[in-house]
């Protein structure tokens, strides 16, 4: 009998993958070091031992090869779940993802499905070397044919990975690596999850709407807590899905607050915040009391890790944007 247990995001994802593999024998995992080692973050820990080397496949070190062969597996009726070891290593597979994974349903007029999940640990804050801390989500959200989601907490991680695997569309599944082993949450695996491609208000408020996803949800919630101490009420929305966007809860919130701050670790220029700002301007123009403000990474390459906390959006920068929004 299932019961509630306290789990980290890493453990929740591991449990979700296990459940998906138990439920559907066509689910296969592939990636670098995911077998015996259990992945560099241990997300696939123990799965090869229990499901065998045919279903948990240690791959050669070639990301295009991983995604490209996964396309073939999907065409053969499998549901591949591939792990890209780090965000910055996805680019060798970019061509396969953008030109093949994203377009095969369209090219075949729906005769072929492409039920693939591409898991990418993303974001910074772990003191890593170059290419290990990036946020490439906009590049995939910009590509028709892909769906892009980001989980922010263990409970979502458990459900969202299973829902992504069950989807007949290819899903870029972003996991905030900084959160993998950070916090535990109560997971009830008998609960009924919300649909995958939906956003959710995670803290109700009335003064400013803060939009976040992945690692910045925690930042936004901390900012809301701090703001509450100063008498300001922030509403925090965890977007969860970046493509398609689920804008209804956002519009509903903005019509009440009239003020929006978007925060993500990705670069501000042409990031998700730009698209969100444009849509909010189109739909909520007469409700807005201030322009939509964005808090993200500066438009520089990711810096050496000793100064990454200066580079990444944090509680203070979110609150600074809230102040500026309130000042209009």
């Amino acid at each position, binding site marked *: 009998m299932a019961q509630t247990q306290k789990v980290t995001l890493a453990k929740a994802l591991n449990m979700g993958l296990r459940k998906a593999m138990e439920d559907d024998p066509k689910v*296969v995992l592939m990636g670098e070091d995911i077998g015996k080692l259990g992945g560099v973050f241990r997300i696939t820990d123990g799965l090869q031992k229990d499901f065998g080397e*045919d279903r948990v496949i240690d*791959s*050669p070190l*070639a990301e*295009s*090869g991983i*995604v*490209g*062969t*996964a*396309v*073939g*597996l*999907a*065409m*053969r*009726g*499998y549901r*591949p779940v591939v792990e890209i070891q780090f965000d910055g290593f996805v680019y*060798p597979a970019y*061509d*396969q993802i953008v*030109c*093949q994974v994203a377009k*095969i*349903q*369209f*090219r*075949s*007029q*729906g*005769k*072929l*499905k492409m039920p693939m999940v591409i898991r990418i640990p993303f974001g910074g804050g772990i003191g890593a070397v170059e290419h290990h801390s990036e946020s490439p989500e906009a590049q995939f959200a910009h590509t*028709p*044919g892909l*769906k892009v989601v980001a989980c922010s907490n263990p409970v979502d991680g458990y459900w969202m990975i299973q829902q992504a695997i069950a*989807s*007949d*569309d290819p899903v870029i599944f972003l996991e905030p690596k900084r959160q993998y082993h950070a916090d535990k949450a109560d997971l009830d695996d008998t609960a009924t999850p919300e649909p995958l*491609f939906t956003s959710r208000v995670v803290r109700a408020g009335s003064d400013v709407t803060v939009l976040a996803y992945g690692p910045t949800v925690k930042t936004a919630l901390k900012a809301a807590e701090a703001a509450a101490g100063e008498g300001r009420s922030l509403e925090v929305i965890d977007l969860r899905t970046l493509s*398609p*966007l689920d804008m209804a809860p956002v519009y509903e919130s903005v019509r009440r607050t009239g003020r929006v701050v978007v925060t993500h670790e990705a670069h501000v220029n042409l990031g998700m915040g730009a698209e969100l700002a444009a849509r909010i301007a189109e739909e909520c123009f007469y409700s807005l009391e201030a322009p939509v403000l964005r808090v993200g990474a500066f438009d520089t390459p990711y810096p050496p890790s000793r100064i990454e906390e200066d580079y990444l959006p944090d509680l203070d920068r979110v609150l600074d944007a809230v102040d500026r929004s309130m000042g209009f």
Partner: protein
Amino acid sequence: MTQRSSEVGAGDGFGPDLAEVFGPSQQDGGPELVQLLTPEGERVDHPGFRFDTEERAEDEVIRGFYRDMVLTRRIDVEATALQRHGELGIWAQLLGQEAAQVGAGRALRPQDFVFPTYREHGVAWCRGVDPLDLLGLFRGVDQGGWDPDDKNFGLYTIVIGAQTLHATGYAMGMQRDGVVGTGDPDRDAAVIAHFGDGASSQGDVNEAFVFAASYNAPVVFFCQNNQWAISEPFERQSRIPLYQRALGFGFPGVRVDGNDVLATYAVTQAALQRAREGQGPTFVEAYTYRMGAHTTTDDPTRYRLSDDLERWKLKDPIARVEAYLRRNGLADDDFFGAVQAEADDLGVRLREGCRALPDPSPLSIFDHVYAELTEELEVQRDGFAAYLESFEGVR
């Protein structure tokens, strides 16, 4: 600029003279070229490969190859003409490569799966894909009109070499499905991945070799070395004969006369059989020549000499089979006349069918982006529909 390999690695700590090990990269196929039918139409033996038609009468099979090649060439000629008439936006010609494609195509069993480039019209013919369906992509009415799972023939892939990875993954799926090495000829299956000499430089192709070798995947890498990647000669892609690269990846490679349909059939059949039996990948280099342009937008007179063409005309894949059949009394004028008439009928059908291919509806662009229409796209589609309707009666 370019040093020949003979100047590298000779007699020093870097090992043997590479030219001695590999031989020159191009030499009209070289001594290791597998050939079973000479350009003059003479049957010859090869110690490693035999023309084995299994249960079927050999003469009938060869007459079938002849018919396949003539009809394939007609598809190509008609499509090229349709492009010149403005009915196709572009066409990728296969002229000269009919034997390589028909030999490879006829070596397949129904349960095998093909991953083509955009030039495998002859393989498509062998798989039973309606040639009219091939034209849709080049006319711009679709991006591949056939169902890949219907004939086990994948969609044309434009990005050079990308499909070799799909082929390898598909072969890995066959391994997991238990259809490799069972000993049941109706069950055991393999994959064939087509690509060209230009693609051999692509990372994806090399990664496909690594993955296929690592997992011992049942896939045949079938490279039509037609000597040209648009304007770049083969020497720009490789310093050694391509088939010899396979050894470095850990599986066998063989160079076959790609203008010899019997040899191409025999070598591909053997390679597919290895794969079906669970012995892993094979690299087949079908040594041939692109007699036409890269596509109808290309102008080969800017970069190659007509001498080459004249030399390769003497190796024509169809003429040598005709010579063989006639000389040995295996086909008469009635046969050749009937094939010609069939080709003419096919030409008429293609011309009429191509012009009748309907344009897709503008609104159809939203249909298969995802398995189900998203709300976002539904809004865009409805908006676009209303916009289009606003022109009713105006234009």
